[in-house]
């Protein structure tokens, strides 16, 4: 493998991992508040088409990202109203959201198939970005790559160190106790779901405006589900989320790479690797109940109904 090949290999893995990291970061916050939103895939697709259409109309990819985040928030609020205010089952509603998002995005995107839109720029620092190996890897990535790392760092700090993060974890651990102390459980969960929606939307925009900058209704290709698996894989810890995202991203890319080389490994098997990995990790960590108990939000997936 030449230096150039190695560089492009690493860059490709980072590119493939970033949408997973973005979407999973949002879902991590949502789940830490005690809400399981299985609609990540649907929210990503709606974000992708909203970002694509906006970028096409305005000529600005950054406006497209903003629109994708807003679209993600909007569709996640649909989920929030159904599950938080109307007490619908979170799993069923999340699945419905994915199916709905799939169809809705396809409908919105019908007129955009085969059209080009402006793409998101890569970081370009004169002198640094052209260095061999380090240049493209450290200084020449897409701006959302840096954003995803910064956001994850902020989330890690927020959850562990800040008081509002503590409140968020408390709501996820026992909504009844949080309510008894006087915290607004539903307001906090609305916010957490909205953040998850925004991050899924941005992940979608990354796909449609950079990773494969053409609209197609199969754009997400299961990445929303991998992001969900990632959150469990990381056992709700930000550092492991980062490691997992790059591991899964690497596997995703590897399947393409191996196919390109003509290695006789069936593609479906490689695609299944992230999920097999999640199952293995789940089995391993479930041997240590204490660790799960400390990190898994105890109220995950449970509806909160305040008794007056």
């Amino acid at each position, binding site marked *: 493998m030449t230096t150039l090949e190695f560089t492009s290999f690493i860059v490709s893995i980072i590119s493939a991992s970033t949408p997973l990291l973005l979407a999973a970061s949002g879902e991590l916050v949502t789940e830490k508040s005690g809400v399981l939103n299985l609609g990540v895939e649907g929210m990503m697709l709606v974000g992708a088409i909203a970002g694509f259409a906006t970028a096409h109309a305005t000529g600005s990819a950054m406006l497209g990202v903003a629109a994708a985040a807003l679209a993600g928030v909007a569709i996640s609020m649909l989920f929030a109203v159904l599950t938080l205010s109307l007490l619908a089952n979170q799993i069923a509603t999340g699945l419905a959201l994915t199916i709905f998002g799939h169809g809705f995005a396809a409908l919105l995107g019908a007129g955009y198939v085969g059209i080009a839109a402006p793409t998101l720029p890569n970081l370009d620092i004169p002198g640094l970005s052209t260095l061999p190996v380090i240049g493209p890897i450290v200084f020449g990535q897409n701006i959302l790559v840096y954003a995803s790392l910064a956001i994850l760092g902020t989330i890690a700090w927020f959850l562990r160190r800040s008081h509002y993060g503590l409140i968020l974890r*408390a709501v996820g651990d026992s909504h009844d106790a949080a309510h*008894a*102390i*006087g915290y607004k459980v539903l307001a906090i969960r609305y916010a957490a779901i909205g953040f998850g929606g925004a991050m899924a939307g941005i992940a979608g925009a990354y796909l449609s405006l950079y990773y494969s900058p053409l609209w197609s209704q199969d754009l997400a290709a299961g990445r929303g589900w991998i992001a969900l698996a990632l959150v469990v894989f990381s056992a709700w810890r930000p550092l492991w989320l980062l490691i997992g995202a790059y591991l899964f991203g690497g596997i995703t890319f590897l399947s393409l790479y191996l196919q390109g080389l003509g290695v006789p490994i069936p593609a479906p098997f490689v695609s299944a690797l992230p999920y097999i990995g999640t199952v293995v990790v789940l089995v391993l960590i479930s041997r240590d109940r204490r660790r799960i*108990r*400390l990190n898994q939000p*105890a109220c995950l997936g449970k509806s909160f109904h305040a008794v007056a």
Partner: protein
Amino acid sequence: MMAMGAAGRYPGATPLLHLQGIVKQFPGCRANDDVDLSIAPHEIHALLGENGAGKSTLVKIIYGVMKPDAGSIAWQGKPALIGSPAQARALGIGMVFQHFSLFEALTVTENVALGLTDKADRVGLADRIADISRRYGLPLDPARSVHDLSVGERQRIEIVRCLLQKPKLLIMDEPTSVLTPQEVFHLFATLRRLADEGCSILYISHKLEEIRALCRRATIMRLGKVVAECIPAEKSARELAELMISARLQPQSFAHSIDNQGTPRLVLDRLTIRSNQQFGTDLKDISLSIAAGEILGIAGIAGNGQSELMDALSGEIPAGRPETITLDGMPIGHDGPRDRRRRGCCFLPEERNGHGAVTSMTLAENGFLSGHVRGALQRLGLIDRRRTGEFARAIIKAFDVRTTGPEAEARSLSGGNLQKFLIGREMLQQPTLLMLNQPTWGVDAGAAAAIYEAIVALARNGAAVLIISQDLDEILMLCDRIAVIASGRVSVPIPVRDATIEQIGLQMGGTAMPDHNVKLPETRYAVSA
């Protein structure tokens, strides 16, 4: 009028908190009906009443969780509106709930921080927690996670959380129900010290001896109304109890049978089981036997293996070898619950909702679930609706269950009423061995007395009875022999009349209890013989 009298007793002192004419109406029930309450500074004031008397509602109104429909609240002489718990805390009202509002996955410090709304309060919090816990004798490690802590330690978190805000009024809701006698003793010392330093305490309980020992004044509620205000030290426990419940108490003296060591019916031989619960307690080497006609009580603090023992006895968890548990000489250690019922065992676990009963099913269906074997409620493998209905009706009648009938959903009943139904369901099956975990949890005094009488009658007719309970008074009153479960081990049963409260308390604390020199006031739990 009562309140004026109260103020008159402390001339010159404005009551710290003064409630007048508080009314709270729920659908179908007036929880508070024109309630007056007045608490003086420095005072430990008892709020006494049965379950459903309206104590909790009144306290929730004081703490801002509920709004009254009518009436006024004055705080230090000035009218006050308490719209939320945060406002109550801002005034200087702290509350320690009966069911702790704690977050298992978080540390002690984090839990306390969640109760502090002011950012300045959270600076150097761990040190201040350590400081307060030292000053008031409430040992606590700020860095530990809550799920590792005992119930007593959890309660201390709640108290420390309140004390950090320097409250003027501390509300304690049934604080001693989960503590060992030694822990109760320490808690009382802390509370007295707080009152001396100027913090009034509203102490909610139905344990009469405790109130007599601790409280300066008492307000007694019944069916939503204040029925009396008195100085508890001047009344006997019996007088207080009669004020508290409407019917006059039957003298409760269940003569303990004397050396009635018949043939053992149930024998446990070195029962050792690993808990299947996440933070459960393993059972270690438990050996005991229960004779026909005997009532054996197992005391202990919650979480020391009671539910695991119950699961092992009911057959939900199979024992290691079949001979570990024998019933009338037959090894039943590997039998499931249904086989054990067929052999004459009946049992009721502690948790009513979802374990003892299926809340979304009707009472008749719940009766069928455990009663179909011994009650012959099946016909050709199908549910015999007519007999099932009759069975449920018989339970409702015999145990005075307040409900609309056998077709009522279990969840529509109050906790105490459902418990009466479930106890009745097991008793009416004429068991030869009855095992109950927390039989009167959440049941009011009148209904508890009825349950006790039924248990005693069953034992006198030759059934063996095992009662697991955290209520020591209940065991001392009801049982022939007592054993203590601590950390999954059960002590050798001794006759109740030979038991001293000090010895039992030490056993309940397990070996981890350092305070061997604590002198307990002997009168506090004196058993009326």
